[in-house]
């Protein structure tokens, strides 16, 4: 029987980082991946003369500040190098209807404040205070990471941290007196976390947008597939072994309820520690149910699944300039209010269209360009009775409406230039990722399942011995950098456990 120090189940962003960190520390590590490619969402696909980016909109947190858990410092520690291009602009937000606007936000602290002031004269000071809150939030998190916090200090000196950690982004922005329109503009990124800003935790949202604003969004040159390959290369250089087409079908336990390995390809593989990059729901379904703590099952049942998407990838036979496309990221909304955008998600509430050629000139041949439509959908939105024979029509009809809306909104023609098209739906994501309902964001970050409570209860909830989790379902929520971060944290934790037990 094969034996490893650590088996990592799933070669997604979190699993690759955790596995690489553990292998780098000298432990015999095996990564098992169901698909024939590494990366999970971090991938690409080729159609005709185009290679499409399927999931990554932009990397946040790609700075290399010493000591922070940002993705660049994680990659540096693992010896992973991927050339990236940083963008000057954050986004263009086009909001239709009453109170609508069309604004562009620039990246960089001062540039962001300038562009906010241009869009909403007089908002600069209040927006600055909101952004600067992040300084206190970082201090507070450092303070909490250094031993048991003193409640008086926490409530006094770090009182605003406590407020941001326990209120929605909209409540905190209102506290700073940010004008309504400015608040709505700042809220534009809510789709990246999947929860409207009246429910989205302020600490979570501010951490994310601050990372985009200050550290600038970045893109790898050769699609996110390159990020996965760079991690695999580092993992292998530390002696790690990765196997594709190797789906784990069972988690193995001893009589004391501790994980002792997995079954893949009909064979049992033993490990001292197992790291799961796959969602707890799937792990529990592949386990002897008597071994799962009742509290863990209850938690999984209590949680709400997060956002999924219908996405469309268009290869066009005209350049962005010829078509009149000027922006990398365009957010198109039918109302300034994120709650309304969320509720209307199946009917143009909010969707994102990216043109990779703007961020990465040369991403496709000269005289061509690529568009990536991201249309949010909750797991319960996918029609339960859709038949196999109606699926093709369903997805084409769905996307056609959005292409038409995009053309009308921007006053441009793309329909006549579609040389390649691929459409992905929750069915596609279910096929490649095996997530429940084909969802992408794992568990919703809203309500009581926000990242603050996930972090706090991570130390309290009863765990299955020898089993750790990382990825979008982890304490940092969805997103590339969040998955890298939980991968790094889980890697460190597993290394410490292994060393303690030696």
């Amino acid at each position, binding site marked *: 029987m094969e034996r490893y120090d650590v088996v990592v189940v799933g070669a997604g962003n979190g699993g690759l980082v955790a596995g690489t960190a553990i292998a780098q520390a000298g432990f015999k590590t095996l990564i098992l991946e169901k698909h024939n490619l590494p990366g999970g969402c971090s991938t690409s696909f080729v159609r005709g003369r185009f290679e499409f980016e399927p999931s990554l909109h932009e990397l946040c947190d790609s700075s290399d500040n010493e000591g922070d858990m940002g993705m660049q410092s994680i990659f540096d520690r693992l010896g992973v190098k991927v050339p990236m291009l940083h963008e000057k602009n954050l986004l263009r937000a086009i909001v239709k209807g009453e109170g609508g606007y069309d604004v562009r936000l620039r990246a960089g602290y001062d540039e962001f404040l300038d562009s906010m002031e241009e869009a909403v004269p007089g908002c600069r000071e209040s927006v600055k205070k909101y952004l600067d809150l992040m300084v206190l939030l970082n201090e507070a998190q450092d303070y909490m990471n250094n031993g048991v916090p003193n409640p008086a200090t926490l409530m006094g000196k770090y009182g605003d941290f406590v407020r941001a950690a326990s209120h929605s982004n909209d409540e905190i922005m209102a506290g700073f007196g940010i004008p309504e329109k400015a608040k709505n503009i700042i809220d534009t990124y809510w789709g990246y976390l999947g929860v409207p800003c009246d429910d989205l935790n302020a600490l979570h949202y501010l951490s994310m947008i601050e990372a985009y604003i200050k550290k600038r969004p970045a893109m790898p040159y050769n699609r996110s597939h390159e990020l996965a390959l760079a991690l695999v290369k580092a993992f292998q250089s530390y002696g790690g072994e990765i196997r594709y087409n190797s789906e784990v079908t069972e988690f193995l336990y001893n009589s004391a309820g501790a994980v002792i390995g997995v079954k893949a390809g009909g064979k049992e593989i033993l490990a001292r520690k197992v790291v799961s990059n796959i969602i707890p729901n799937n792990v529990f379904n592949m386990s002897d149910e008597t071994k799962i703590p009742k509290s863990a099952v209850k938690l999984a049942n209590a949680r709400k699944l997060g956002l999924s998407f219908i996405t469309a990838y268009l290869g066009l036979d005209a350049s962005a300039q010829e078509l009149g496309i000027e922006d990398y990221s365009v957010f198109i909304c039918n109302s300034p209010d994120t709650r309304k955008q969320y509720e209307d998600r199946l009917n143009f509430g909010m969707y994102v269209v990216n043109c990779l050629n703007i961020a990465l000139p040369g991403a496709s041949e000269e005289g061509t360009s690529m568009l990536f439509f991201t249309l949010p959908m909750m797991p319960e939105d996918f029609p339960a009775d859709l038949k196999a024979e109606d699926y093709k029509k369903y997805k084409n009809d769905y996307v056609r409406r959005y292409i038409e809306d995009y053309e009308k909104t921007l006053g441009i023609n793309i329909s006549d230039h579609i040389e*390649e098209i691929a459409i992905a739906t929750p069915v596609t994501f279910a096929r490649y990722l095996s997530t429940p309902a084909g969802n992408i964001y794992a568990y919703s970050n809203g309500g009581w399942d926000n990242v603050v409570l996930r972090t706090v209860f991570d130390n309290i909830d009863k765990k299955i011995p020898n089993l750790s989790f990382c990825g979008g379902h982890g304490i940092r929520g969805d997103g590339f950098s969040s998955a890298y971060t939980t991968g790094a944290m889980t890697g460190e934790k597993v290394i410490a456990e292994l060393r303690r037990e030696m």
Partner: protein
Amino acid sequence: MSDLNNIPRADLFSMFFKRIAAVKAASDSPVKDLYSYPANRLARELHPECQHLKIKEIIPFSDDFKCFVFEADKELGTEKPAWFSAGQYLVIAVEIDGKVYCRPYSIASSPRDTLKGEIMIAVKRVDEGIVSGYLLDNLKAGDKVLTSAPLGDFTYEPLRDAKTVIGIAGGSGITPFRSFAKAIAEGDEDFNLILLYGSRTLKDAVFSDEINELAKENPKIKLVNVLSEEKKKGCEHGFIGKEIIEKYAPEGEAYSIFLCGPQAMYDFADKEIAQLGIRRKFVRHEVFGEYFHPEKNEDYTADISKTYNVTVRISGAEYTCACPADTSLLRAMEAAGIKAPSDCRSGRCGWCRSQLISGDVYIPQSVDGRRIADKEYGYIHPCCSFPLSDIVIDVPPAKG
């Protein structure tokens, strides 16, 4: 004083209690099964890991061309053949002398036939074809066949393609067009198909009568037989070129051209199509067949008479085989009985994607469908990679 003074800090505690209460109130019965979700169920139905089928009927057109009608082998767990998009193919896996061979075959039946539990492929004898010969000469009704899910992107895409498609078919390249025509007749595809079908004589034009029957009932379907070796009333004579295409093309309206046939047909038709001045987006080829004779390319400078050693790693186990310079790594592995994954065998689908650990390979540019980063990081598609030295390669295990 903080701007946020009016926001209560005590809400932190109520938030904790909310979570505790929510978890406490939740059910402790096992979490929902993955396939209780409609998207996962549909994904499994559309893209099964493999399909266990058995031969329901064999329709022989000649000793060298037969149709195989499959039905689901329920005993082995396949309830019905998966729905597909007209134009797609199945990979058939057969065991010959203890070695597993996989080959792609276009689906000839319509998607709707799967609802009746049927799916049909057409097999034409290929020179040196190990698998086609085996299928044609050995298979009989009732035999079990393992296939892939439906695959491939030689499909009609309403948001991309013109409303009228000129189909150019040669030989067994007619197969996907039978599926297109039937799918139009049954309402599952909505476009006008003008099918230019090249054969030597009308007798060779398999499916011609059937497609004509469909055309009689449906104005969206039209068939034109183009015969190279006989003149017949109602048929065109010669090869399918610019003039014939222009004669049947819709006037003053964009049209797409879909081609499926042997390389020689592509070589001729592509030159003719180039003179029509239509945009690249309107011309689509089905990949049809493996790449042979890499030495015919100008950029091939190695000695084609050599044979190299290939070390193959699969899931930690190691195998070896010999690979002549003119043979793809995939064929060499297959001949040695090493089970490697493969689907399209034309460089495009990436299912055979493997890591080149050491050694050099020649990859013909025209079939190099790899991702950019794969090229940089040393991953290859063995179906289109020819050895230039001894090779060590890490191959994912084949499924099924």
